[in-house]
């Protein structure tokens, strides 16, 4: 089929409406878009205008599912954010010189994927350079992201225009970058063009932007070439028609080259594209602010170019992007025609190929300003090719200069999708490449930008603005199922009241026994009678949270009835009173190996237990996997040696909180002998310093899943760095009271520990932006988060939490006084898994939030007077003896 080529449109007066391909990203104002949707191709595409355009498209990308770009901004403001869309670079598209960016937009509910394709300059003969070619690629993977992007930002429209430009990233990795590039390109171009003629340069593509084949065409209007492919062709024709139409206005604008792939996909996307046309209302051009005219280059599928670089689906669409803002397109398209059917929609799909130009991210921001300028230039005629060439040269130079700045992709796009960029991670303290740093940069830039421009963005870039309004009254809120007492709970409470009347606990499952025992201990109703019930027979698990009522004699007497051969879990917390060394001989350490299957032993508070006693205990329980020796103040480092010698190969969990006589550096050699240590609690131990952490972690930190460093105040960022680098499987981390840590720690954690589920901060001096950036990169798997007393927590964190913390079920924001009702409302309404929210000390919270939030499941404690004991963290009674592995794993 014939490939329709866009050709230059004649000078304004005469030219039919040039293919004002509307950049995909360029959603015309709402008024425009609907019109544009209906615009049809008026005349057969000019074709033959520029053979070069044919050669342009080189990247065949199939677009399985073109997505319509969002027409977005009603105001026609182009949002640079669309860069994000571009970020989804097609993986496959590694063309030699081309980079493909996939950008998806939502346009009128349709998603169009726009892929940026870089065009080889030489191939494009248009003008002096290559026309920016955008390619539509239907990358499946990209879609999701695009959707997200589109949905998130609703940017659509604006973003598109500028974003579309993106494309080309130099490599897949740089996808995001591509977006930026696009956006920026136009920006520059706008700037450059202040004077007048508008280079068509696909803004995005920067250098490559071929001045629309319009060499010589005064206004450089591009004709849209549409491949004559069947379906696609049809549409293309329509598009071309646009070009044809060029009524007058076109002249002003650059020519848009649209090459539609004959592919079906193309067709589809074409359709979408068409629909997403820019609104034809010429008058609205101003509003449209097409940042770039997007040239859509449709290539015949037979085109050799398309073969392959990307190897992705069959068709590809190339779009060359014009710098001309929408206005141009619109103007052109709408040209004199009433039907304006400028399928500027095509523009939506226009992908500009990007070459090496990588505009700096900041340019994106400037783009908008540029957009405005573009509007102003709307009526400017394009200069002829000569000028364009100059522009192109300039752009190329600029691109070259800026390329190095873009070694990293723009994090903004990434924020939308959770795809971690493939960036080399340099473990330098000062410089943390990776998603975290990019996120941080975005925050900071956003904050600056906000201050500069007072845009009405919502989202990350607008720290001061959290949009949330209370949606319901307290009484309307559905009563959560969790708040209705279950029959089990009711029974337990009755039993706790009448524990003395219980005769036997036979056939009661362990989980229920534990719950009952805990209830009794909490209410101080535990006594010998119940204790005997618990240890009667041959129990497998005995848990007592509080043995402070138990005397030595009672303990000895009751325990002697117990057949301990089946005991797997024994918890005797607060047993200081009843467990001196000499008791062990008659109870727990009757003989060597008398506790053959004991997996988990907790003797916290055994303040009369000495090294000798521990030795005896250890010899009777050789299979011990979890040992809790919290507050055993008589133990010294020699007991750890004993442990290491007998349990070094099996011990998984070691709790040493507040063992005051233990010195960390002295136990270091012993600790290094534990081969499978997964849980280590070190608060309150003397001399936990950076040196200790470094040595221990590098020796044995690989298996660590839980590391609790509360109050080890000597630790600094370098410890966190080591932890992040080594403990990639870390699930729980506690950095409470470590006031020497700075934001760098968050950076290390974001880059290193990707699977963190429980995170406890308190009194740390982290900044709002850093926490927000951390959440953006690692927030998805977080289940419990404590930001207690992190004074700077504010709107940025709230927004990041709302966006990225889907699995969060427990959140502590006590003493965070910078959080407003709106911020909390946003968090609570967005974190749908949230069950517990602690707000102690948040005196700024009012009923606006407390009664207005619409999350029925969440329990808010700390604001009003509510009983809280049962909300204190208790071990899950149904959980196994080990937190992170099962007993059978050796």
């Amino acid at each position, binding site marked *: 089929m014939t490939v329709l080529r866009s050709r230059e449109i004649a000078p304004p007066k005469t030219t039919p409406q040039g293919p004002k391909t509307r950049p995909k990203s360029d959603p015309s104002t709402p008024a425009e878009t609907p019109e544009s949707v209906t615009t049809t191709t008026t005349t057969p595409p000019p074709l033959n205008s520029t053979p070069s355009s044919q050669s342009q498209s080189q990247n065949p990308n199939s677009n399985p599912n073109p997505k319509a770009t969002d027409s977005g901004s009603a105001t026609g403001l182009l949002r640079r954010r669309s860069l994000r869309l571009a970020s989804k670079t097609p993986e496959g598209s590694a063309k030699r010189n081309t980079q493909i960016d996939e950008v998806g937009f939502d346009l009128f509910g349709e998603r169009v994927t726009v892929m940026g394709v870089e065009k080889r300059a030489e191939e494009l003969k248009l003008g002096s350079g290559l026309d920016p070619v955008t390619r539509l690629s239907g990358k499946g993977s990209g879609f999701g992201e695009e959707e997200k992007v589109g949905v998130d930002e609703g940017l659509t429209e604006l973003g598109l225009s500028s974003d579309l430009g993106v494309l080309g990233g130099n490599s897949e990795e740089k996808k995001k970058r591509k977006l930026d590039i696009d956006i920026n390109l136009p920006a520059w171009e706008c700037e450059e063009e202040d004077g007048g003629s508008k280079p068509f340069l696909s803004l995005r593509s920067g250098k490559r932007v071929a001045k629309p084949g319009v060499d010589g065409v005064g206004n450089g209007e591009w004709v849209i070439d549409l491949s004559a492919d069947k379906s696609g062709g049809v549409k293309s024709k329509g598009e071309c028609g646009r070009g044809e139409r060029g009524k007058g206005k076109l002249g002003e604008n650059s020519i848009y080259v649209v090459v539609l792939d004959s592919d079906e996909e193309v067709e589809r996307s074409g359709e979408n594209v068409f629909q997403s046309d820019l609104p034809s209302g010429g008058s609205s051009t101003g509003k449209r602010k097409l940042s770039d005219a997007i040239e859509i280059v449709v290539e015949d599928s037979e085109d050799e170019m398309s073969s392959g670089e990307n190897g992705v689906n069959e068709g590809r669409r190339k779009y060359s992007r014009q710098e001309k803002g929408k206005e141009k397109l619109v103007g052109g398209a709408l040209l004199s025609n009433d039907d304006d059917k400028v399928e500027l929609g095509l523009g939506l799909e226009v992908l500009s190929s990007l070459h090496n130009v990588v505009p700096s991210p900041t340019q994106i921001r400037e783009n908008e300003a540029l957009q405005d300028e573009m509007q102003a230039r709307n009526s400017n005629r394009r200069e002829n090719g000569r000028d364009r060439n100059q522009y192109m040269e300039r752009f190329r130079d600029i691109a070259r200069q800026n390329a190095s700045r873009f070694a990293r992709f723009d994090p903004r796009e990434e924020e939308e999708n959770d795809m971690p960029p493939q960036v080399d991670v340099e473990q330098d303290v000062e410089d943390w490449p990776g998603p975290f740093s990019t996120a941080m940069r975005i925050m900071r830039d956003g904050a600056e930008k906000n201050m500069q421009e007072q845009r009405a963005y919502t989202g990350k870039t607008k720290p001061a603005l959290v949009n949330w309004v209370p949606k319901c009254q307290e009484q309307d809120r559905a009563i959560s199922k969790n708040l209705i007492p279950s029959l*089990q709970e009711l029974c337990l409470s009755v039993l706790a009241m009448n524990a003395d009347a219980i005769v036997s606990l036979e*056939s*009661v499952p362990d989980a229920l026994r534990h719950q009952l025992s805990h209830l009794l201990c909490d209410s101080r109703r535990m006594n010998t009678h119940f204790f005997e019930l618990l240890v009667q027979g041959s129990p497998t698990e005995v848990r007592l949270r509080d043995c402070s009522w138990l005397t030595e004699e009672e303990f000895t007497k009751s325990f002697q009835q117990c057949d301990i051969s089946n005991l797997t879990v024994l918890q005797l917390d607060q047993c200081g009173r009843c467990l001196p060394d000499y008791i062990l001989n008659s109870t727990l350490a009757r003989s060597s190996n008398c506790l053959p299957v004991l997996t988990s032993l907790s003797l916290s508070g055994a303040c009369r237990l000495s090294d000798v006693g521990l030795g005896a205990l250890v010899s009777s329980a050789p299979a011990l996997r979890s040992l809790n020796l919290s507050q055993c103040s008589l133990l010294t480092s020699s007991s750890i040696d004993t442990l290491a010698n007998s349990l070094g190969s099996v011990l998984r969990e070691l709790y040493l909180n507040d063992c005051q006589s233990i010195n960390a550096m002295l136990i270091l050699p012993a600790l290094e002998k534990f081969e499978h240590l997964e849980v280590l609690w070190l608060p309150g131990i003397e001399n936990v310093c950076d040196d200790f952490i470094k040595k221990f972690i590098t020796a044995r930190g690989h298996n660590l899943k839980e590391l609790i460093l509360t109050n080890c105040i000597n630790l600094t960022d370098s410890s966190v760095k080591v932890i992040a680098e080594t403990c990639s499987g870390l699930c729980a981390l506690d950095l409470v009271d470590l006031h020497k840590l700075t934001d760098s720690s968050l950076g290390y954690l974001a880059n290193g520990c990707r699977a963190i589920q429980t995170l406890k901060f308190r009194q740390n001096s982290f900044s709002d932006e850093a926490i927000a950036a951390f959440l953006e990169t690692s927030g998805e798997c977080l289940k419990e988060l404590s930001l207690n007393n992190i004074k700077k927590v504010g709107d940025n964190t709230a927004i990041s939490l709302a966006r990225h913390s889907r699995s969060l079920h427990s959140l502590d924001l006590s003493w965070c006084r910078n959080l407003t009702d709106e911020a909390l409302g946003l968090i609570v309404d967005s974190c749908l898994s949230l069950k517990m929210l602690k707000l102690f000390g948040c005196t700024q919270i009012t009923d606006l939030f407390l009664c207005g939030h619409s999350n029925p499941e969440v329990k808010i404690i700390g604001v009003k007077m509510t009983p809280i004991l049962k909300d204190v963290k208790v071990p899950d009674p149904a959980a196994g003896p080990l937190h992170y592995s099962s007993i059978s794993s050796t």
Partner: protein
Amino acid sequence: MKKEDTVKLISAEGFEFVVHKDAAMVSQTIRNMLTSPGGFAETEHGEVTFPEISTTILEKICKYFYWNLQFASGKQTEFHIEPELTLELMMAANYLHT
């Protein structure tokens, strides 16, 4: 009560308690039995048998179901449990996940 929205809960001794489906669904176990696509006999006939739950306990459980629905709809009263039943009731409740 229409046949369609009731289920029959049968105790160990063979007593049959006919309750509303909504009430029975308070129990997660029963809900799974009745709604799972596995083609359980229970789903088809709308009958669930509990060979290890005695009649008095099952009766109390049915009362709990209705109490639960009432609580959720706003009327929040106290649910009294006779102490002698409690241990068994607790185990049955644990089994029924309610």
